[in-house]
């Protein structure tokens, strides 16, 4: 089904224009895809729009989401193209401007303003051993301002050590492996076929991932900011750490934490969190997480950690079912609840009791000591 060159050229123009159009709507149609789209259009012809749509869709889309988007885009473009005689509608300038604006606002929220504070504490002497002991046990929400710096320092030091210990344990385990028959036989040829030198397969490197969701609504603030440190320190041990904060909505802060000064990032997060109040919708946030990030971030190598006191103003059923969905896909689901540090606390809030059946580990996270005790849950073996 080849067409004369003249029509072919026109076709090329329209297809390229169409690719540009869908690209503006978020479908990644690059040069390579445009060429393929043209090839596909030539192969099926343009007479039958349904077939043309199916062909272009196959080439340009690569997920269900793009696929769903495509139909509308296709008809929008071709109707306009038919009306204007071959010229496609230009992508909405207004919409794009809006997008850039909100992206900028978001960046601003995540912060790129340098903070100058926090340096005056530097001269302080390191506290003695007993002071350290005390700090380890102090509830994060009750740490006096004057001790904050020491606690931070101690936390980083201890957490880093923990992270190193975890990595080392992983390496030792990796030494044991199965006999590598292939190399064993190869070595045995020189010995008349007797496998004297055994060759071993290295154990496959485990690609661990950590996903952390932090509740930053009202009272959870102090705890969440400490858990960010925890996540930061663990970056060494886990191949990949993705961090999110939530209250009534979910937002990703992985980028904020990556490749920056921890202090700075923390300061900004703190400022940002202060403005957020109102109830927590854990279930809804988890649903959003599942929809947007679930496929990408959750698999059998993932350790999923959520920090929250379980005060959920949403529907407990949603929380339970979303949590169950996550648990099915990950290696371990850990729920940290700072209130667990209180002696009289019992997890009877609606949200918490809905969540508990779907949790592998339910642990306190109110002070440094409790965070360090998480080590045994983090280790793979």
């Amino acid at each position, binding site marked *: *089904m080849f067409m004369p060159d003249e029509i072919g050229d026109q076709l090329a123009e329209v297809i390229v224009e169409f690719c540009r159009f869908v690209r503006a709507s978020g479908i990644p149609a690059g040069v390579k895809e445009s060429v393929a789209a043209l090839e596909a259009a030539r*192969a*099926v012809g343009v007479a039958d729009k349904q077939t043309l749509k*199916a062909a272009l*869709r*196959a080439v340009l889309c*690569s997920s*269900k989401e793009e696929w769903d988007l495509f139909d509308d885009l296709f008809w929008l473009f071709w109707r306009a193209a038919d009306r204007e005689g071959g010229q496609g509608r230009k992508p909405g300038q207004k919409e794009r401007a809006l997008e850039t604006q909100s992206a900028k606002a978001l960046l601003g929220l995540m912060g790129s303003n340098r903070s100058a504070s926090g340096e005056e504490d530097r001269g302080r002497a390191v506290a003695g051993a007993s002071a350290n002991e005390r700090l380890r046990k102090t509830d994060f929400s009750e740490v006096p301002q004057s001790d904050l710096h020491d606690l931070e320092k101690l936390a980083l030091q201890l957490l880093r050590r923990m992270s190193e210990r975890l990595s080392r344990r992983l390496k030792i385990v990796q030494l044991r492996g199965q006999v590598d028959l292939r190399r064993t036989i190869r070595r045995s040829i020189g010995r008349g076929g007797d496998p004297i030198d055994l060759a071993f397969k290295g154990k496959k490197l485990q690609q661990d991932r950590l996903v952390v969701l932090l509740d930053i609504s009202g009272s959870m603030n102090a705890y969440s900011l400490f858990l960010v440190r925890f996540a930061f320190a663990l970056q060494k041990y886990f191949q990949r750490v993705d961090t999110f904060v939530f209250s009534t909505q979910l937002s990703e802060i992985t980028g904020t934490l990556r490749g920056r000064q921890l202090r700075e990032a923390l300061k900004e997060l703190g400022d940002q969190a202060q403005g957020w109040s109102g109830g927590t919708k854990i279930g809804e946030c988890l649903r959003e997480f599942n929809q947007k990030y679930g*496929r990408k971030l959750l698999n059998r190598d993932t350790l999923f950690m959520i920090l929250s006191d379980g005060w959920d103003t949403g529907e407990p059923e949603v929380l339970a079912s979303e949590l169950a969905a996550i648990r099915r896909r990950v290696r371990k689901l850990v729920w940290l609840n700072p209130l667990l540090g209180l002696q009289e606390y019992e997890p009877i809030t609606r949200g918490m009791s809905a969540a508990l059946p779907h949790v592998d580990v339910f642990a306190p996270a109110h002070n440094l000591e409790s965070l360090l005790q998480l080590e045994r849950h983090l280790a793979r073996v």
Partner: protein
Amino acid sequence: MAAPTLPPGKSIASPQDVVRGFEELGYITDPALATVIFLGIKMGRPFLLEGHAGLGKTEVAKVLARLLGTNLIRLQCYEGLDVNSAVYEWNYQKQLLAIKIEEATTQTVEEKEKHVFSREFLMERPLLQAIQGREASPVLLIDEVDRADEAFEAFLLELLSDFQISIPELGTVRARHVPFVILTSNRSRELSDALKRRCLYHWIEYPNFEKELRIVISRLPGIRQELAKQVVSFVQSVRELHLSKAPGVAETLDWAEALVALGRQKLDPAAVEATLGCLSKSLEDTAKIRNADVEKLIVHAG
């Protein structure tokens, strides 16, 4: 990249040819899927079929192989699938025996090594088989690629662009006929962008009433028209119930077959109750279907 070659005497000139060919082999396609298959053949690109389980993704490959009259080579992916079980492996037992037997001969170590690592001792796994088609391009089905890990996906990507495999002891094997490649995924995880961009993409939806009815009738020629209609409309309503695992076409066929085997002429609550296991694969789903009131879901003809 070389394009796959059709067997002599075969030609597929348009998407309609695909629809027709598939239908003759008992597989009802829609024009969109047929277009993708046609383009895959024409442009020599692998295609990625995504969709819920039980909608005939795997079947597409089987039917395509029959339509083209070539071999179907299937690689079932699973967690932990490695190159040894996907590409090739040496036959160790045989190698050990050969070394023992040759002990007394005067061959040098190098000669022995060369012998033991020759084709005779090589066990070809699906991917190596797939690039060694003798007369024509085989169909290579890489099933449930989302189950394999990311490292394997990267390897696959390399194979799909070069169609060659290097075996350190033997040298490089190049494809004589590049296979037609079909990948399927249940979307249990997202595939890498690079792999997705290499492929033509098709999302398989649940079929509409007419299409599903045609499928049931073409696969179960003995079924009564009325029963088939009731079964299909029942399943279509069940899909609206948001079950944890909605029944696919495979379940519809199973169920219809079960009803026929039980000698049912039409659907009634008792028959549904007795055979609900064909449709629902979990306790919660079964409860949901019961709660939705089975009687209401049954459409009575006339």
